[in-house]
């Protein structure tokens, strides 16, 4: 049963992102229950994509100026599933504290940052901008003790655990560290500065 009229001419504007918020929400809601309108939106998106392709100056320009963002920042593509997993884990953590809170979920999705460790193996930390959690990922299967430093104080956060291509630690500690260190015993392996 369809309770709303078909979207008609709105498909073009919807796919271009040109609808006002209310109408956009109404079109999206209708498309969830109407296969024909969903397909109309898909066709509109494909046409706008064709226009995108048509206006790109040339392939070398695209490749030179628009490299993969992670690669431009020195972060290889293998991080992506791990970062997605980090966001997912963080979501579970926050969802436990504030179930079904859209505002909390929106915060999780957009309010985190990341920093790279300065040595090898390649490693990084993804962290909430309010410093409520830290997610450390190290390439390879090594186990490293993670310490958080603020001024002269330091705190052990735990040990990374191998998981697929990375070794990881999620630390929901609520402390504003300036620096994170990976250690093997007393040896400092590498350091990341939290900005």
């Amino acid at each position, binding site marked *: 049963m369809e309770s709303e009229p078909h979207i008609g001419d709105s498909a073009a*504007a919807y796919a271009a992102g040109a609808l006002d918020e209310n109408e956009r929400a109404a079109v999206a809601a209708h498309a969830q229950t109407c296969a024909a309108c969903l397909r109309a939106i898909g066709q509109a998106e494909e046409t706008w994509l064709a226009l995108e392709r048509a206006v790109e100056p040339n392939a070398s320009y695209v490749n030179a100026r628009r*490299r993969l963002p992670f690669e431009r920042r020195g972060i290889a593509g293998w991080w992506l599933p791990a970062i997605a997993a980090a966001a997912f884990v963080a979501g579970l953590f926050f969802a436990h504290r504030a179930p079904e809170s859209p505002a909390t979920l929106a915060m999780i999705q957009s309010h985190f940052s990341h920093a790279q460790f300065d040595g090898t193996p390649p490693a990084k930390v993804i962290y909430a901008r309010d410093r409520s959690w830290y997610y450390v990922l190290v390439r390879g299967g090594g186990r490293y003790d993670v310490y958080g430093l603020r001024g002269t104080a330091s705190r052990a956060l735990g040990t990374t655990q191998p998981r697929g291509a990375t070794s990881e630690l999620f630390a929901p500690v609520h402390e504003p560290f300036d620096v994170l260190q990976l250690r093997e015993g007393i040896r400092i392996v590498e350091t990341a500065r939290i900005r």
Partner: protein
Amino acid sequence: MRDESLELRFQRRDAVAYDAAYRAFAPRMNAAALRLLRDPEAADECVHEVFLELWRRRTAYVCERGSLEAFLVACVRNRALMRLRDGKRRSAIEQRLHVVEKYEMQTDPIERARIAQALERLTDVQGDVVVRAYFRGMTLSEVAGELGVPIGTVKGRLAAALATLRRSLIAETNDGI
């Protein structure tokens, strides 16, 4: 050419498919966001945010909708448009004017020529609406206000323009295969 296997795995939220989609489509997504934002860092962030959001949403993409690449580009454009329409962000972008000017000096003449060429099959009023709504990221109501016509008229012109573009651009693509 569409990779329906990738699209199906992406729909099922397969992490390897997300990685493959990122590698395949992030450059074009970045280009689309950059065209609107004129800020490389912000464009990067939009691409990241789209993938993270899609990973979290269980019903974000379904194959029946159409091309995954087209869907992702539409998503990143929406993300970029949200930023553009955010007053605080607009202010921050204006503060980086020197960066914007430098970028526009490097790219605008080429892009303008390409856009004009792509839109040459449209009538003047259709082309005007496409430039405002698609390339400048204006809403229909903003376009209507600038042109002094009803919103429905703008919407109709945009739909007609899209139909013409579909006939010309998609046909060219198919002819080229």
